[in-house]
């Protein structure tokens, strides 16, 4: 009888430990071992004070070991703090390219005006190509893409090309 009782209580301790381990290591959460509470007859037997004391000792040891394992080392705490600080700084500091994109750059506005004027006159001349190409290098990537797409759209829609070769230099 005592052996059966000991086994049942060991199972309880083991399942509790597994649940503790799963929740402390980030493993998929599992429900606490409530099912063990519904275990058959042996679990309902009242343990003797000695057995309770022994089992409490075992659980204390396991809990102490688990807590020791879970407690962050000073090094990892420092690393975590550094990572958090870096993440916060990164979130606050805008990306230079994005910052510039908050307002179109003057060179982008100028290039788009040039492109619109070319569309209005219905032709893309060598002079247009040279002028706009010279401005592309001073824009952000997004602005450059937009200007190039604008010209491509217009050329594909029938704007005349006054030269042979690429639309930009």
């Amino acid at each position, binding site marked *: 009888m005592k052996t059966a009782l000991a086994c049942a209580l060991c199972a309880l301790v083991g399942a509790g430990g597994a649940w503790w381990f799963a929740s402390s290591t980030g493993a998929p959460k599992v429900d606490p071992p409530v099912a063990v509470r519904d275990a058959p007859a042996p679990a309902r037997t009242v343990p003797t004070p000695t057995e309770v004391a022994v089992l409490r000792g075992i659980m204390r040891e396991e809990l102490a070991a688990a807590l020791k394992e879970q407690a962050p080392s000073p090094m990892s705490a420092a690393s975590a703090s550094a990572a958090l600080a870096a993440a916060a700084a990164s979130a606050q500091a805008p990306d230079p390219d994005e910052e510039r994109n908050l307002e179109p750059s003057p060179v982008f506005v100028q290039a788009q005006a040039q492109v619109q004027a070319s569309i209005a006159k219905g032709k893309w001349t060598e002079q247009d190509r040279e002028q706009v190409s010279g401005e592309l290098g001073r824009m952000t*990537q997004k602005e*450059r893409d937009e200007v190039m797409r604008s*010209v491509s759209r217009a050329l594909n829609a029938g704007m005349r090309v006054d030269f042979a070769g690429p639309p930009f230099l």
Partner: protein
Amino acid sequence: MLGASLLATGVALAGSSSNQQVVVGTTGGLLYAKGTFRPVRNSADSTQYIGCSIYAYDSGSRSIACYATDAVGNYRNCSTSDPGMVQVAASLNPASYLYFVVNADGSCNRVISVNASYNL
């Protein structure tokens, strides 16, 4: 000996050969252009051409513009900074066949190159 050598050279040039001139059209509602560099360059007309230009900037970004004109002067082009398509443009060489499709906004939908002996 010289005759045999010339004969051998002649045989070496007798492989399969592409004669893909610049063609522009639509596919799936999108404009496209295609052509093989060698026959386009050697075509009888002085109008058609096809190719891509690569633009690199000190910010580290790169863009391409692909363009083509067929024998009767129809012009097609697209541009993109997509790294994959930039890489395809960088692979073009005298043995290339180039095919590009244009999105409605003027960007490149896809850029395809075939580098093969029959294109030489």
